[in-house]
């Protein structure tokens, strides 16, 4: 069992938890993920590591309440325990040798982008961060990003905070002004990452995306997390759990990933409603 050491609501739909998992905390690096089960009959869900404390032996997760499992998870409190917590899985984000990087985070994806920004900042890299949200209510981690970045753009779709518009607006302005980076790293909804890739492509700057497909075992066994890369005109199947979750954004077939991600949409919605009803009683 893995104890919840602390819990904090970041906004009405996003929660942060610190989990006691010394084995995972000892090894976790930005960009890697864990798989958890809330209870004995629970499903396995992957969540990207949002932070870790090697001394305390804890791992931070930040999750959005989107389905039955995250709803149940959100009903656990400090002192409660998760049934299973395994990791760190996947390959850590490549940070070595980077001098100037632009991090683009969207929504709850910012939770995953933050430790990467922090790590880059620590190794002396110049970090520009662009973080985007639908509206002010959904804003998270602004102060943390400010501390890790030499420049920060906060965007909201409706203009209720920061600047109005999506994350591509400042990106295009920077590129338009001839600014360049060693790499653009983007994490967020698939559609956002697709647009960030498209905006970055003309500059030729390498663009890394963090994929979060449906997974079961997460250890390279089931193949459910497969995605297609277009490498030099050839279609190549890769597995996000062992080959990723980071991939070269120019190669990823986003349309396919979006379609596959929606496979159990109806089931998930139903499970979410059921979980909500359960807690109403």
């Amino acid at each position, binding site marked *: 069992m893995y104890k919840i050491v602390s819990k904090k609501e970041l906004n009405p739909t996003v929660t942060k938890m610190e989990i006691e998992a010394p*084995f*995972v905390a000892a*090894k976790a690096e930005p960009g890697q993920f864990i798989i958890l*089960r809330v209870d004995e*009959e*629970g*499903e*396995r869900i992957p969540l990207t590591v949002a932070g870790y404390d090697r001394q305390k032996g804890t791992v931070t997760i930040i999750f959005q309440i989107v389905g*039955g*499992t995250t709803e149940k998870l959100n009903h656990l409190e400090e002192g409660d325990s998760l*049934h*299973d*917590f*395994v*990791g*760190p*899985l996947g390959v850590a984000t490549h940070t070595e040798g980077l001098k100037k990087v632009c991090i683009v985070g969207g929504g709850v994806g910012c939770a995953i982008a933050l430790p990467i920004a922090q790590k880059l900042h620590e190794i002396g890299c110049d970090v520009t961060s662009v973080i985007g949200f639908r509206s002010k209510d959904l804003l998270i981690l602004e102060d943390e990003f400010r501390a890790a970045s030499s420049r920060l753009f906060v965007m909201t779709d409706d203009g209720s905070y920061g600047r109005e518009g999506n994350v591509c607006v400042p990106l295009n302005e920077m590129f338009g002004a001839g600014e360049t980076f060693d790499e653009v790293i983007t994490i967020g909804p698939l559609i956002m990452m697709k647009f960030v890739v498209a905006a970055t492509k003309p500059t030729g700057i390498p663009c890394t995306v963090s994929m979060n497909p449906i997974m*079961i*075992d997460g*250890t*390279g*066994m*089931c*193949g*459910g997390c*497969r*995605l*297609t890369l277009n490498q030099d005109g050839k279609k190549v*199947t890769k*597995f996000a759990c*062992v080959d990723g979750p980071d991939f070269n954004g120019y190669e990823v*077939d986003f349309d*396919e990933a979006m*379609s*596959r991600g*929606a*496979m*159990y*949409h*109806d*089931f*998930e919605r139903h*499970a979410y409603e059921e979980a909500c009803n359960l807690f109403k009683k």
Partner: protein
Amino acid sequence: MPANMNPKKNPMPTQEAAVRAHNFQEVATGYSEEVAIDEAMRCLNCKNMPCVSGCPVNIHIPEFISKIKEGDFEGAYQIINITSSLPAVCGRVCPQETQCESKCVRGIKGEPVGIGRLERFVADWHNAHATEKPQPVPSNGHKVAIVGSGPSGLTCAGDLAKKGYQVTVYEALHTAGGVLVYGIPEFRLPKAIVQKEVDNLVAMGVDMETNIVIGKTLTVDELFEQGFEAVFIGSGAGLPNFMNIPGEAYKGVYSANEFLTRSNLMKSYLDNPVTPIMKGGKVAVVGGGNVAMDAARTALRLGAEKVYIVYRRSLEELPARKEEVEHAMEEGIDFRLLNNPVEILGYENPDDRRDPKNGFVTGMKCIKMELGEPDEKGRRRPVPVEGSEFVLDVDTVVMAIGTSPNPLIKSTTKGLETQKWGGIIINEDTGLTSREGVYAGGDAVTGAATVISAMGAGKLAAKSIDEYLSDK
């Protein structure tokens, strides 16, 4: 007592095909005491024991069968227990027809003795009647780590624990058992039986650590740093193979690993599951091995109206156990032999990109095959019949065409040599890898194979580890 000279085996009682096709309860229900004794009486107790040479773990077969003849079922169990750690499992899933039973003298003029059925009977009798729990053996002070709790790992752990080693088994998933739990379905191997075997090991003092991925959470080198003196790698099958034909990313295309893991490990077969799976509709399973049979029969039990096995060769070349093929046919699985998929078709509404049906499987285009010249292994090569393409109307496709070994350990263990295709290279006489103190066996070495061959490998490694550490 005179031998029972009936040329035929006592048939295995099973659930009616029409009934079992709709439930997940075990297909074969097992011999009664009377039938077991009657079957045991067919054994001639040959002096040279050809059957034993056919068993990868060399169970003392005529000896345990003699005990059954006497009605001493617990005695029979104790004899099996000397060499096998998982009799209730082996009695169910071993391909006895190509192993012990293929060597049986009774098989020359009739059917061999039903050794597998007797083994299962003995193990089940023990599980139902035994009151004494296995006891820990006094420790010899040596620590051994086992990677993976599948058949090879459990066997290796059991054999070492019996000799007094302090054994820790590391399992990546949340439940111990490996392929016995996530792969083989309930109707062929009830999960309670696997759990019982795992519980027995724990009672013997084996430390079972779930949720630890060796190669990620801990590396093999760190295990040595922690004081383990030898490591056995039984990490099992890895990433599933796909055919690399168009359409394999459509929704409704599963690997057999994913399909079976959802149903078995994550219990998607329940009426109100937490982990979803596509149920019902028409299902095509591609492949002809035991895993393909498991997937097809699982799909049927999940409520499919029609299930096809699509296999590119003919019935004769089907690699699955004969019994599994017969069971599948009885249950109404439609075998489309000499057929090979060339493309999976999906729904695309050109007028509405948001149509929720977009991207779901609607069919599988196949081509008919004929058998050509034999290849180097003597198997006749299937050749496509030009212009014979047709579309099979299906909603779900399950690819059961093998796996390649898990990459996590290879990529994090320096000096561990592997084959080009990823299998760990071992000395076949000892199970030793290219690293001192590191042994390996099972699918991680051989690629997809059987439970019993994995157990044989676990057993061999346990013996070698014992010799290695005794000399140290």
